[in-house]
């Protein structure tokens, strides 16, 4: 592998293992994600896909193997972990907005405390981001006053405010009512066209078909199959992939 190739790979996982008690939730994951790539991770529940993307910013600790994010190796060193987290935004299934802060404060909190931006700078960025996700008029409301789709768009804006190179999405539309899924997916499609790297755990196959560069199929803690959306949807090689796709499509 040449140096040029190595720096093109923003996430490198080599033989990553994790156990919950005796349950082998990640069983030797080896995968790389290139800079700017949009990767969709899918598979049955309990297959380890959420755990996998949560190891990328150390919300879950891996027990064996190697994870390198943007040239920084994930070790137990808190400085490495925090450096990686600064470069990595995450959007959760349950939004996890801070209910005691306004939308604006939710977005400006991390830039001000972690990146040491002034309030003025942080608020200017926040208003730009709110406009980008289409809800600038809600800036002074509290999360509890917004709909699920609006909350999730605030969560995306909050993650983007740190200007991350990687965005991790952990089933971002699974807790939403059907009519709100579209507005969140539109924002994500807009992001997919930017140069941010996206790793998305989702069951939204139309989203995957439209914007994914590559899809990873997880089952029983392993990557069973991967390839372009065209390959996965028209010519899946593995029986388990075929079975799962037949169940959800």
């Amino acid at each position: 592998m040449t140096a040029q190739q190595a720096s093109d790979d923003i996430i490198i996982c080599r033989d990553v293992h994790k156990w919950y008690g005796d349950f082998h939730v990640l069983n030797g994951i080896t995968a790389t994600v290139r800079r700017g790539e949009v990767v969709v991770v899918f598979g049955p529940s309990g297959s380890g896909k959420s755990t996998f993307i949560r190891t990328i910013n150390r919300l879950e600790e891996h027990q064996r193997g190697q994870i390198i994010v943007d040239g920084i190796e994930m070790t137990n060193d808190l400085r490495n972990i925090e450096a990686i987290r600064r470069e990595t935004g995450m959007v959760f299934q349950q939004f996890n907005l801070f209910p005691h802060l306004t939308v604006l404060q939710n977005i400006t909190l991390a830039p001000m405390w972690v990146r040491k931006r002034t309030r003025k700078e942080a608020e200017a960025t926040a208003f730009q981001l709110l406009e980008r996700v289409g809800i600038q008029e809600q800036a002074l409301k509290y999360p509890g006053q917004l709909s699920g789709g609006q909350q999730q768009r605030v969560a995306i804006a909050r993650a983007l405010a740190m200007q991350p190179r990687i965005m991790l999405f952990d089933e971002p539309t699974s807790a939403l009512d059907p009519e709100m899924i579209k507005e969140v997916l539109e924002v994500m499609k807009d992001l997919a066209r930017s140069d941010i790297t996206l790793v998305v755990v989702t069951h939204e196959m139309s989203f995957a078909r439209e914007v994914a560069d590559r899809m990873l199929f997880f089952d029983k803690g392993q990557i069973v199959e991967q390839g372009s959306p065209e390959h996965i949807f028209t010519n899946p090689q593995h029986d388990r992939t075929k079975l799962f796709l037949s169940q959800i499509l």
Partner: protein
Amino acid sequence: MSSTELPVSRLKPPGSSVNALDWLRRNLFNGWLNSLITVLLGALVIWLLYQVLGWAFTTAVWTPIPTNLQILMTGRYPSEQVWRVQICLALLLLLFGLSAGVWGGILRSIASGLAAGALLLAIMPFTLQTRLVLAGLVLLVGAGFIVGSRSRHHMRRLTIALWFASPAIMVVLLRGFVGVPGLPYVDTGLWGGLLLTILLAVVGIIASFPLGVLLALGRRSKLPVVKGFCVGYIELIRGVPLITVLFMAMIMLPLFLPANVRVDNLIRVLVAITLFSAAYLAENVRGGLQSIPNGQVEAARALGLNVFQTTLLIVLPQALRAVIPALVGQFISLFKDTSLVAIVGLAELLGIADIVIEQPAWLTVPHGVHREVLLFVGLVYWIFCFSFAQISRHLETRLGVGTR
């Protein structure tokens, strides 16, 4: 969404307005049994009121209260120095008035409550001098409010600075210095009455709060030593009555200290109350910490906030808000528990009341004056505790804004 508005039913919910007579019939006189119970209980209430009011306005001897008002308020604090207590009180009320003007909101309710209380006392049959002082306090609150609201920007910093400086100013003023003619030394052993009660409660609340929060956080720590210490401390203190802790501080502590080290009695009691209260506070706060979903911490950490920032900015504000009712309940019980220091020889409000009751002047009163004095003391405790509860209710509604 708004363009396709469907015709909406304009029916109002069925009315619930009833006149008083209807209400009476429906709730108190529906059936002969309920009517009988209503009549009997009504008679009982009227008889009790007649007895109590009859006693209060004819047989009861209230003179001990106005004649001993100064003792009840300040204990054995020297008479000719009481102006120092009054200045402290004036400073406090001025500060509340200023804060109400600068920030408004709940502080405004507190300040108006204080002014109303002082005004109410000013029309009571106390000595003329007392009533003039009380009226002056009302004016001070008003003046503070006007000055504060006129120039918010200038007064904000000054008010905050004054709040932080005020404990030191008050202690210096109350204690004085040996050999300074205008401000002679007053031993803390002479501080008493309501002054001492408030001092114990306020210092206990303010000092035990950070300690309790730290203990609660420590109890959830992953470090075994920190966690073990906090669990041990909390369980030890919670297993012991406050009176035992007070006795420890007053009687046992001097045995462990070198003979030439003397710690002021008041400070020993303050430390004991603080350490005791912190353990209970820690358990209340821990309840709040446990109510915060793990997703909040994950979201904060994923944004790059460190452990300290996550705790301070995300977890604690939500946890403390969730336990306001429990915290206020604890502060109220702490306020009432200060009456226990009478047992270790400090004459706070209840201790002073005992002294007043035993005064030889009241030996000629047939049944003694303990009913009257204790009623008065109870009323004072009730006013304070009820005010705490009201403030906490305001606080809950205000902080609840926008959280579902």
